[in-house]
């Protein structure tokens, strides 16, 4: 299955990436080539195979429900591009 430029633009929005026209062009052909290669997985019959999400069979690792020290507000904000000492500051969410 071949990938179109239009699909790449849609995926870029989902991925929250802005692509230049040159980047979009290049990625269309590169991702198409990779996906073509990956399509060989289709040769395998996996109907009876359970997916493996994790290499070891661990489940339900729980921690005690206790209050522990965590990152201070000051530390959490220290690397923020913009903040007011209490909150992260971002551009308008719903337009101007």
């Amino acid at each position: 299955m071949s990938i179109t430029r239009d699909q790449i633009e849609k995926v870029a929005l989902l991925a929250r990436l802005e692509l230049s026209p040159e980047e979009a062009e290049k990625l269309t052909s590169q991702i198409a080539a990779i996906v073509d290669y990956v399509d060989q997985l289709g040769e395998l019959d996996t109907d009876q195979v359970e997916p493996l999400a994790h290499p070891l069979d661990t489940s339900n690792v729980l921690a005690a429900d206790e209050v522990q020290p965590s990152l201070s507000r000051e530390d959490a904000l220290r690397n923020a591009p913009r903040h007011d000492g209490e909150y992260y500051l971002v551009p308008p969410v719903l337009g101007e």
Partner: protein
Amino acid sequence: MTMALVDLTAREHLARLTAGELTSVELTTAYLDQIERYDESVGSFLHVPRDQVLERAAQVDHRRQRGETIGALGGLPVAVKDVLCTRDMPTTCGSRMLEHFQSPYDASVVERLLAADAVILGKTNMDEFAMGSSTENSAFGPTRNPWALDRTPGGSSGGAATCIAARMAPLSIGTDTGGSIRQPAGLCGVVGLKPTYGRVSRYGLVAFASSFDQVGPITRDVADAALMLETLAGHDPRDSTSIERPVPAYSQSVERPLTGLRLGIVKEHYGPGLDGQVEQAVRAAIDVYRKLGAEVREVSIPHGRYGVATYYVIAPSEASSNLARYDGAHYGYRTDQAEMTAALSRERAGLEAAGDTAAADALDAPLVRMYRRTRAEGFGPEVKRRIMLGTYALSAGYYDAYYLKAAKVRRLIRQDYEQAFQQVDLIAGPVTPSPAFKLGELVDDPLSMYLLDLYTVSANLAGIPAISLPCGLTDDGLPIGLQLQAPHFEEERLLRGAHMYQHETDWHTRKPPLL
């Protein structure tokens, strides 16, 4: 004196430090001088705070002189890959996105190193966010292979491997998601160990693909890797995927040879694409095991040939999710907001003037545009490619065909290993299909670059431990690596088996001509 000192192994240094024949300041100074001498041409390090490093070394010396109990790595310099969080040094992940990031905490492995009284020498260069096999994807410039400066050291732990090869550090830690410890170790003629998934804490390891990522040592020889793993391994309640199991005293057992070793060779490994000289060196290494009394058996990993395809669906999928955190809001780079807002207004005005209200309505909201532009400017091409690939594989309509399918094949690959390890104790084979390639050779051909991970990704897919050790040089003098793999949590067997080889051979003592 200096040259002789940096040629010793970490364990030899440790013996001298313990005996009071050497101070950490002397030792650390020798390595810092080596960095000054060679790192301009190699580019292993992104950050070496000389004064801070020496101050720490002096503290350890002082405590030793006062007779205090000193940790297992007391006074040994250790280089740390720049994907592991350090409170006292920058953590950039080789990315513009984190160029000015200062972690508020230390990774668990860094805490362990400090608790063992190691001296952190600096942060090493890497492919951006550990995505790559050549260290050319670092935003701060490539690392070069000390054996041939026009060639790549491999990646993503290129800095971590080259600093060992060029004697700029006695010990180093890297991370391995699809081969990022073993491949550069193989291409640089040093030892690199990827532990079992869950053996070493990932807390404070900046996530790339969380079901694969694992921290491990890169060292000059196997005994040093055993020493290092002993410090790094163990359960950490802050990483829910780390496993609660006792840590064997690897450094005590490593010199004990395995008796009655059944060594597996994978018949699918020796096909087209495997360089003739690499094959010859690997077969010669297997002959060394035969001579040592090992029984060599052929095994099959029938789904191994699907490893690269499987890996390059799952790992980018996990990456696309993990890297969503770089949003320009919480930490890291953000695009120039005034410029971004002005551009958006101009676009809107243009579309409205042309009467295209539909297009004007479809424009990004300012927050979305901020995300998109921040990520466009902060990430390099390979990271964008993987985010795009992963987002595609997880998107509606493709999830079943790609992500789910790959997760099923992953189980088949793990099963192949389970079956093989019923017949053999260790599996031996190549690390890479060919020796180090030239800088720039594969930059525009991502698929060919991915295919070089053929022999390393399977261990990550199955979660098993694997080690890379030097087993030869090509006619051009480029290192060749031997890979050994073991069942889950059999690092002790892996290290003992690897040490048997090094006891018989001297490839691990060879030095790059640069030195």
